């Protein structure tokens, strides 16, 4: 177990370092940050001086080394736009993104899994086919368009749900803020969560269905039926549990995708999370925020993968217990 974990950890660190390098190189090319930091009337000499102060004229390896050593100490520099440490900004934005991602993932799982199970067990039924076809809409329309249509319907026309923001948030602990504890906070979560989770829900449903179809054809399911076990036991204890092994991997990957796709949803719904900040940073060429965001998503992704690997360890005895 420890060997397994350390090996995984080592791989994760290599991935992170490569991402850091990519993040760094990428943002060296995105645009000129100086133009964003000053007004239009600032003179060329002043711009050049600023460039020098920011270290943008140093050799690239020097800049990268500085970047990595600082990032390792959770110092991502100061945002060009906000004039605040990027780590502080992210600390404020992370709760919003994580709460949205969590709710979306929950929505995707709670709706997707039962639908997938049903469609897997009743392959030929009309309801399964309906599930399959209707859920396709979730992956056939771009997220931003779904969001806009939802706003148009539920906020503008019906005026049931808010069109932007997190509603009222309550501080929990020293730096976390939550929208889960207020009515307006919960209402504000509905539309963005659906927008963000729809795609994942469709994927999870289809994945569960496909895995279920395969698993129920295996020998051990046939044998379980031949032992006369009731359908409930066969379908849920045996089939579903085995289905979940590959589903967990994909769900883990999808969680990473949810956080990445949150950028679009957050933009449409003006959700004050990391993704919104990232896109604004891209528009304003705010390099520190962009590189920190990329490292952060990569970190979350790597962390989720690591957790999934460990989870595997507990779900699948073949990994946990040695052979004779």
């Amino acid at each position, binding site marked *: 177990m420890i060997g397994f974990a350390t090996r995984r950890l080592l791989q994760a660190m290599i991935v992170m370092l490569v991402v850091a390098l990519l993040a760094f190189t990428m943002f060296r090319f995105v*645009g000129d940050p100086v133009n964003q930091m000053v007004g239009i009337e*600032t003179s060329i000499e002043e711009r050049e001086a600023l460039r020098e102060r920011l270290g943008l004229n140093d050799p690239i390896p020097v800049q990268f080394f500085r970047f990595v050593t600082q990032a390792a100490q959770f110092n991502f520099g100061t945002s060009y736009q906000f004039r605040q440490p990027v780590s502080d900004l992210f600390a404020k934005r992370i709760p919003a993104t994580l709460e949205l991602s969590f709710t979306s993932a929950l929505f995707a799982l709670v709706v997707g899994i039962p639908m997938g199970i049903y469609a897997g067990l009743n392959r030929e039924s009309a309801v399964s086919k309906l599930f399959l076809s209707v859920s396709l809409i979730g992956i056939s329309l771009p997220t931003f368009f779904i969001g806009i249509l939802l*706003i148009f319907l539920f*906020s503008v026309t019906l005026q049931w749900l808010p069109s*932007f923001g997190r509603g009222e948030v309550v501080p929990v602990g020293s730096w976390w803020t939550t929208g889960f504890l207020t009515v307006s906070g919960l209402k504000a979560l509905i539309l963005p969560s659906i927008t963000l989770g729809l795609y994942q829900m469709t994927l999870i449903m289809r994945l569960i269905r496909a895995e279920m179809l395969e698993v129920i054809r295996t020998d051990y399911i046939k044998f379980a039926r031949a032992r006369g076990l009731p359908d409930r036991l066969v379908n849920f204890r045996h089939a579903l549990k085995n289905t979940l092994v590959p589903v967990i991997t994909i769900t883990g990957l999808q969680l990473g995708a949810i956080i990445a796709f949150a950028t679009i949803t957050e933009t*449409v719904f003006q959700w004050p999370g990391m993704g919104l*900040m990232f896109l604004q940073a891209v*528009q304003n060429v705010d390099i520190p925020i962009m590189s920190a965001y990329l490292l952060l998503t990569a970190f979350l992704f790597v962390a989720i993968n690591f957790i999934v690997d460990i989870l595997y360890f507990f779900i699948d005895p073949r990994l946990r217990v040695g052979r004779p």
Partner: protein
Amino acid sequence: MKHRSLLLAAALFAAGAGTSAQAETLKYAFQGTLNALDPYSLNETFTLSSLGNTYEGLTRRGADLAIEPALAESWEIVEPNRWRFHLRKGVKFHNGNDFTAEDVAFSVDRVRSEGSDLSTRVGADVKVEIVDDHTVDFVLTGPNPILNYEWDTFYMMDKDWTTENNAVKVTSASDTTPNYASLQANGTGPFKILSHEAGVKTVYEKNDGWWDEAKHNIDTVEFTPIGSDATRVAALLSGELDMVYPIPVQDIKRINDNAGTVALTGPELRTIFLGMDQMRDELLYSDVKGKNPFKDAKVRQAVYQAIDIEAIKKKVMRDLATPSAIMISPFLFSKGSEFERYPYDPEGAKKLLANAGYADGFSVGMDCPNDRYVNDEAICQAVASMLAKVGVKIDLNAQPKAKYFAKVLASGGFDTSFYLLGWTPGSLDSWNVLSNLMNCRDEAGKGSPFNLGGFCDAKIDSLTKEVLVEIDPDKRDGLIAEAYKISHDNAYYIPLHQQGLAWGVADNIDLVQRADNQFKFRFVTKN
């Protein structure tokens, strides 16, 4: 020194009660974010506009943009090069400190220090002399009739507060630790900042100790940045917000039709224009090799006359624009009405092109921002389509402003052949336009840094110098008009229009829409 006054007040619905015991909250949204609270760190309209509710300058501008006394009760030019300002007595900062001449001197030093983005507010050669606690002299090296024109956005800071909190140095982009002044604000204005989460939400609270009589009835203001046009409009339509700006021109009708909301529109001071590379001997992006067609005035005029400005006004801007013949808003220049655009004449344009030797037209690349000005990209597309009809083929390169400016400005080496730009003179005065847009420049941008096309007319340069020191308003305006006429006759620029302002407001809100696109809470009443 007089401006045509303009009042674009929006007293559309009779204000019912002046004061009510009920706590009123104003919720509004803007497309951009309020980043740092340091009043000298970013010279940008919205930042200065927002901070103007908390901080105040020696002067302020009224609803009609006329300069009014604010923290200075009055001022006079005691000698040609010495201006004396009499400070208002009894003014207190939000933390309770008194506002004194010390604070003015401190603010002047700070605004001119390294890292300040507003260092042009007070020239480096200007000396400040404290006469007494409430009198300050500004000593100039030469006459400057427009010394205080931009002082409405040169906000006074509290010397003691700033010093105590180690914020004397201006919050600069290269800082690694946050500056206290960029996170907290301590001004003298009508609203205190209660909380500020950059890019998320800023909450203001009424300042009960304000020196002026409050005409507003707002207790709390909540500001949220909403970048997406559609979401911003939706938030207004759904009643979640009291006021949003800007609103896309196409949504004006919808907002007006919607029960409970109204769109306020009016001309803005920004002039949108097209510029052409007239410096290089061969255009960077064109099929014409070995020569530069834009060096020929006939070609420039042909391009000018190929553009149907009325169509742009009607279809792209939905009438929310004023076609312009000069490079400044006529509101800011007394002789503005003397100029007339070249008429729209595609046939004439073709003839001009043929005379210039381009009977078959030519192709040229055009740079255009797509998130900077009202419908900027749509304007460029319309222009491209119109020029295609006279044989000039446009390859349009529309980009987000970050990339656009990086390419076309001095830092990008003026990498453009044909571009669209907008300009508002910060001082609301023509000298700013002449010196920034119309003087000669070298390849590094020395001279007029925003004369991206790099045309050079010695006469305009000399006129600019005269304008700077001319005290007599009429004579001064004459000199300016002469410079504008040279530009017009040679078609150095193709001015398009002054774009319009469009704000979306709930019916129960009364406010003032100023032509400089600044939103001041002190004008707001909520019923």
